[in-house]
C-alpha cells in the first residue's frame, strides 16, 4: 500500500525532509510507519501523530492512501 508521510517543525529539521511516499506491504501501525521511514532514528518521546489530519495513537493501524504526520508538541496561540 501507499502511505504519504509528513513531518513538521523541529522534527522536519531533524529527519531532514518534510514528506516522503512509502510503498509497503502488510498490516502496519503508525509506529511501524515511522520505523520503516526512519530505520536509523528512534522516534522522539514526545512525538505526536496524525492520520488524515486527526490525532491517532501510535498503535493505530494505517490504510492504503493514508497521510501519516509526525510532529513535536504544538506551540501556537
Amino acid at each position: 500500500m501507499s502511505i504519504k508521510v509528513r513531518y513538521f517543525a523541529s522534527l522536519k529539521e531533524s529527519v531532514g525532509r518534510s514528506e516522503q511516499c512509502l510503498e509497503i506491504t502488510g498490516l502496519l501501525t503508525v509506529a511501524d510507519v515511522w520505523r520503516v521511514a526512519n530505520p536509523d532514528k528512534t522516534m522522539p518521546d514526545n512525538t505526536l501523530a496524525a492520520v488524515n489530519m486527526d490525532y491517532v495513537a501510535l498503535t493505530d493501524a494505517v490504510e492504503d492512501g493514508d497521510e501519516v504526520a509526525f510532529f513535536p508538541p504544538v506551540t501556537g496561540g
Partner: protein
Amino acid sequence: MRIKICAEPFEPWHEVQAYQQSAISMAGKFGATSIFIGTMRDFNDGDDIQGMTLEHYPGMTEKQLEKIVAEAMQQWPVLDALIVHRVGDILPNEPIVLVAVWTSHRGDAFDASRYIMEALKSRAPFWKKELLASQTERWLLKNTDGYL
C-alpha cells in the same frame, strides 16, 4: 463560525467588527462577547526576541479548530465564534491569535472562549520558532497551561 489562517498581519478589531456585522442573525440576540487576543512579546524565558516564525499543518489546523469550536458549542450555548491565527514571519507587538465568542449571557462567553483558547494551545498544529536578539533560532518545546 469562521476559522481564518492569515499569512499577513491582521487587525483584530477589524476582524471582529467585520465578522459581527456580517452575522446579521445575531443582531439583538447576543448580550455577551468575549474576545481573547494573543500578541507577540519582545521577550520570552529571559531572552530578547527579535521575531518569530509560525509553522502550521494546512488542512489539519483548520480541521482541529473546527472540531474545538464544535466542542465548545456542545458545552455552552454559543451563538457564533471566530478564530483568526497568524502564520509565517511575525514581529513583536503583532497579534498572533484572536478568539471571539458571542453568547446571550456572559458566563458562557467567558467559559467558551477560554475553552477554545486552551484547546487551541494544546491541539491545533502550530509551531513557533523564535529568533533571539543574539540571532540564534530556537523552537518552542511546549506550551504553558493557561488555567494555572
